[in-house]
């Protein structure tokens, strides 16, 4: 299965360019994490608002920090936020959604739905502020706030899908040989939701990175680092002064990264969809 999936993915030109972009940012993020790139993000290495030069490829900001360094570091930050928030919220949403869907209309389902309803009704930015306050400025506060609130959409989608799939005969056939419910869910039900989860993961990834921009702007975002969100927040003053270095670097990087992810997951979704292979 993996081989045919890869072959079909390879045939998709847009998907492959998406994959290249994703790989590029992955390499950047890894290099930042192991200390090869972007380490001088906070260092004042030049004058205020220097223009593009051999030493400062993207110029410098108001404080004289190198924008390239900050952009590279920001890629790692975006990656970190996107991956952590997407991974955990999709996982949480899938597990809770699958439980609620498989045991629909039971007490378990009721509890999960109630929890989801409560979380959905709290204004998000208020919630993020509350979490940040409660955790006393812990650097994972923003991630946590997003995970706690973002899983609900996934859970709703998965629940509906599981309820639909569990009525199909192949599920009955699996139960008829006495497979335990949990095996049926993981082997027969959830694989049929993969295409939906992929789309959902893309959406969450994009939303997480965008939310970070807003939260950073509000001062609830990341600490001990720089992000494209913080750069955009900085640029709001610079743009007025006619300086577009921060603004361009952050928004173009954001755009390219998100587009890469979109292209890649679109292609992956097609490649994984066994229902599309024609005889």
């Amino acid at each position: 299965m993996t081989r045919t999936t890869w072959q079909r993915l390879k045939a998709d030109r847009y998907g492959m360019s998406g994959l290249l972009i994703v790989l590029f940012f992955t390499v950047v993020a890894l290099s930042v994490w192991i200390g090869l790139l972007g380490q001088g993000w906070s260092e004042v290495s030049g004058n205020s608002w220097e223009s593009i030069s051999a030493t400062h490829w993207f110029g410098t900001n108001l404080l004289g920090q190198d924008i390239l360094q900050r952009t590279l570091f920001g890629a790692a930050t975006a990656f970190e936020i996107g991956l952590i928030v997407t991974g955990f919220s999709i996982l949480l949403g899938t597990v809770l959604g699958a439980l609620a869907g498989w045991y629909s209309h039971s007490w378990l389902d009721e509890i999960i739905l109630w929890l989801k309803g409560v979380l959905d009704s709290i204004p998000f930015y208020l919630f993020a502020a509350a979490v940040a306050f409660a955790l006393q400025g812990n650097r994972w506060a923003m991630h946590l706030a997003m995970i706690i609130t973002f899983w609900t959409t996934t859970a709703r989608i998965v629940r509906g899908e599981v309820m639909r799939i569990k009525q199909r005969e192949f599920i009955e056939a699996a139960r008829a040989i006495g497979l335990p419910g949990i095996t049926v869910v993981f082997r027969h039900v959830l694989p049929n939701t993969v295409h939906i989860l992929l789309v959902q993961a893309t959406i969450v990834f994009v939303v997480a990175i965008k939310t970070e921009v807003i939260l950073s702007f509000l001062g609830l975002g990341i600490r001990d680092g720089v992000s494209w969100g913080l750069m955009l927040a900085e640029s709001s003053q610079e743009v007025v002064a006619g300086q577009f270095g921060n603004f361009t670097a952050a928004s173009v990087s954001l755009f390219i990264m998100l587009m890469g992810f979109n292209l890649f997951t679109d292609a992956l979704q097609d490649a994984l969809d066994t229902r599309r292979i024609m005889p």
Partner: protein
Amino acid sequence: MHINCPPSNPPLLKVQELSLSFPNQEHAVDRVSFELAAGKTLGLVGASGAGKSSIARTILRLAEPYAGKILFNGKSIFSMNREQLKEARQRIQIVFQEPSASLSPRRTVAQTLLEPLRHFAIGDANYRQDKIRQTLQTVGLNHDALQRYPNQFSSGQQQRIAIARALVTNPELLIADEAVSALDVSVQAQILQLIQSLQKDHGIAFLFISHDLAVIRQIADEVAVMYRGQLLEHSPADMFFSRPAHPYSKALLAFARFESSARLRTDQLPASQGPGEHSSACIYAGLCVDRMPVCERLEPEYHKIQHTEEPHCVKCHLYDEVHADDKLADDN
């Protein structure tokens, strides 16, 4: 209530006084009893919602009855321990109506066929590979099907794969729940041929559920008719198709033969109704053309018709000597 039919010897499957209820009464089952001997085919016929599929699901323990017993090889499936139940499940398999829905779209044919073998821990890896290849051959498919996905096959081939999945564990009883109803006639004929040969070559017993009497005619040894959760007639197939006893059976047959003289009102064929409220009347009294006063008062017993060694029971007052006399009196 007791059926006076002599037991077929030895019964592979024995359903006793089985009752199931559902919130809206649709698909419910009301005190149904029948037996199925090894290697025989029982055709279970009735309109949709009559409770046929509910019985199938209960035999597989996908639904729990509120009363009654199901004995498989003499043992009640509701009092079996884990091991016994696993053993029984290996011997009872099912094929569903909709071929495209009965196979997981994201699993290859090989994965689908191996699953029961792995679950029941039958044989080693080599045996399993041989077994699935051999089974594919039995149902008329090639080995190259193994690595493909269900959507790469036509619906007839998908149904063959579903049958193969049911066959890999060497079952003694195969439940076919409208297994040919969704297929084109020519494909239907091929699948019926396959079922017939399976029965001949492997001695598998079939509980063949269908709303289509013509299909039942092709392969059933015995016919049981259900109406709104109750079993109204159970007889040898030749007897059923030449001399049906119950008025409902007669109506069904006339309809299936497109006899215009027997044109029924549309409300006469129940689309989807469960058992009525537990009144004391015969459940079919409302639509019966041979209704007698007693039918409104008293629920009929099962009567054995004395012309055959094989079971022929009918739940109708017409075959009760006392009330049959009433009927004659009425007519006069």
